[in-house]
């Protein structure tokens, strides 16, 4: 196994490089990316939907100048979709072209050669000559049994193909696995990874994200957006607004030419931020001009 390519000099280097790629990492995220690089280990990223788990992998690929190879997981994903597959049709053609006089052994050796191998994302990442970042997205969607497919790759960076032997990677790719936590991943998988939990950002970071990602927003509005979203997340909702929904909301407000958010605007645009009817009702009730709780001191 070759040494991991060390590309980051120190923690702050990672953080500023990510910031240059418009990904605002906090200390934890940057630290773990740095460590994964040093230790040559995969990162398992968990957290609520829409907090930038997939984006992290993309941004790391961007700053290291690597190619991003993505494996989207789904129920029913199997070896032939994730690792490799024999090109059955081509093999048939090969047999027919040979005719009847060829020796069986020659044909057999020939049939199971690289020429007839269809590489799928995992094998492709292992065999890549250039630098790659492998993203295994939403790994919690595959069945527990299918997880086992990943184990060899994640710990040894190799793939065993019975007919060909073991394919060893020439370099250690950065590997990101993301999970929305709909089920508990197996211990074996977790053990092989560094664990990173990306939660909703705190006020400052969310404000920075809004400022960086929404062109033409002024500081005052970004601040208000971040603060309102924080207050909404404190309510007991079915689905808290994610960062991407915050950004959508901020964009909407900019498009509408809003400069100051008041209760009326918030009520009208709440459906951008919240996706459940009960949640919207709850938030609107909470933030509308409700005099019962607050009027006393004001009046």
């Amino acid at each position: 196994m070759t040494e991991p390519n060390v590309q980051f000099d120190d923690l702050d280097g990672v953080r500023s490089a990510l910031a240059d790629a418009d990904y605002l990492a906090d200390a934890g995220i940057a630290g773990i990316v740095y460590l994964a690089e040093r230790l040559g280990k995969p990162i398992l990223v968990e957290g609520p939907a829409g907090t930038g788990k997939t984006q992290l992998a993309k941004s790391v690929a961007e700053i290291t100048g690597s190619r991003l190879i993505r494996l989207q997981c789904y129920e029913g994903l199997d070896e032939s979709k994730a690792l490799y597959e024999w090109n059955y049709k081509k093999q048939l053609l090969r047999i027919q072209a040979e005719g009847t006089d060829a020796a069986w052994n020659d044909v057999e050796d020939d049939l199971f050669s690289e020429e007839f191998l269809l590489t799928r994302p995992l094998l492709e990442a292992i065999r890549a000559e250039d630098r790659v970042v492998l993203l295994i997205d939403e790994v919690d969607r595959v069945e527990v049994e299918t997880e086992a497919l990943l184990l060899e790759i994640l710990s040894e960076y190799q793939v065993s193909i019975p007919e060909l032997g073991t394919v060893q990677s020439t370099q250690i790719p950065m590997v990101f696995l993301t999970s929305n936590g709909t089920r508990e991943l197996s211990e074996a998988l977790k053990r092989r990874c560094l664990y990173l939990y990306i939660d909703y950002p705190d006020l400052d970071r969310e404000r920075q994200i809004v400022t960086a990602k929404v062109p033409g927003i002024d500081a005052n509005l970004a601040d208000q957006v971040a603060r309102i979203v924080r207050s909404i997340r404190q309510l007991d909702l079915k689905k808290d607004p994610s960062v991407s929904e915050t950004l959508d909301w901020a964009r909407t407000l900019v498009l509408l030419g809003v400069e100051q958010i008041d209760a009326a605007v918030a009520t009208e645009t709440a459906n951008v931020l919240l996706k459940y009817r009960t949640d919207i009702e709850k938030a609107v009730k909470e933030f509308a001009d409700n005099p019962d709780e607050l009027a006393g001191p004001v009046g």
Partner: protein
Amino acid sequence: MTIASTSIDGAPIAAGDRPLLDLLSGFIEELRNAGLPVSLTENLDAMEAVTHIPLEDREAFKYALGATLVKNHSHWRAFEVVFEVYFSLRGPEYEIVDGDPSADSGESDDDQMQMPGEGQAGGGGGGGMSALTPEQLAEMLFKALMQGDDAMLRALARQSVMRFAGMEPGRPVGGTYYLYRTLRNLDLAGMLDRLMEATREDAPEDLTPLEERLERDEFNDRMDRLKQEIEAEIRRRLVADRGVEAMAKTLRKPLPEDVDFMHASREEMANLRKAIYPLTRKLAVRLARKRRHGRKGPLDFRNTMRHSLSYGGVPAEPKFKFPRPAKPEIMVVADISGSVAAFARFTLHLVYALSGQFSKVRSFVFIDGLDEVTRFFEGVEDIGQAVHRVNTEADVVWVDGHSDYGHAFGVFWEKYGKEVGPKTTVLILGDARNNYHASQSWIIKDLKHRARKVFWLNPEPRAYWDTGDSIVGEYGTWCEGVHEVRNLRQLEAFVENLV
């Protein structure tokens, strides 16, 4: 964060020439004691990870350990506590010194841990404040909260702990007691009112309710930070006083899935409530999957023959019927009197969150009377809300509002007994503490004949069963199973088996 390096080198328990290694082993040992599953590989990973991290960067050190040792987000809190204890800032300035400005001066002469002068002088940010009057201190706190000045808040947190907590060396009192004493003196509720008042005055025009709300949230957030600082400060001092291992043991808290329903504190209860929603979602996904991927059904003869036509009559492709495992019908009968109410609440929540897995769910609650509460759950999106209504609106008191299982079962049998059929699974939730009323256990016996299964879930530890007025044994004879369900982990396991 320069002090952290001294904390590791100068750690008191570090014996031998490899202090960091020893400290880390102790740390990991404590994590395991707290219930976190740390494997040997993860242990080695952690050791390797810290060699890549500049040790004086405490934050990075923490994340390096976290990423390698904690693989479940719900364990993060427990990890943080242990980390704070093992790698907290250390030094003479955190010794507990008697004779704080406000403490009673009478007890300042009897302890060997006293370090006059030194502690105060080393106090850094807090050093200059010891001369302030309480009013001045409150004023500074007000300003710091108003401006969100974190450095100032930290210094003030230290100062308030030194002044108000009244910590004495060697006194076997938990951190919560000191926290309470400090906070009582700071009067944060009054502070919030003052802050809001000042904000209103500063504003050019009247604040809209929305703005008001946002300001309030902001101040609450700052106060939470102040509380955390105070807590950390108290912990640091306690660690300095009692040593790492003893402190870690005192602070050890059960993981959320192990918290006992009947003895959960308010904070733990809030955490439990937060934990239950993701848990139900996970469980629902798992159960739906199990159902779908279960064994194949019996051979579908007609379908097989039809497909055999394309193979010239050879049944080359056997076809199977889809499995249709019967979904059980559930009746939940729950005791919602005082001590077991929380347990009933969680179980109702879980059962209704999974109602897709059952063909029908009906629920009944009782104390000494009994009421059907299925209506509260019908067409409701927010289960938490419905459970709340059950607790407030259901008509469950017959005479005196003390549990009477016998009478409640009697009412159930009379009114709803006929609706229990061979497909019905009955879950009875309660501690079977019957206040020495008649047990009427024949009802459970008859119920069992009629129903598919009868289960009893008891939130009490097994050792307490059948002591005092508990008659779970008598009822249990007629049930398929009596299960001890004291925490989320056990509840989850039971429900999974049920489906």
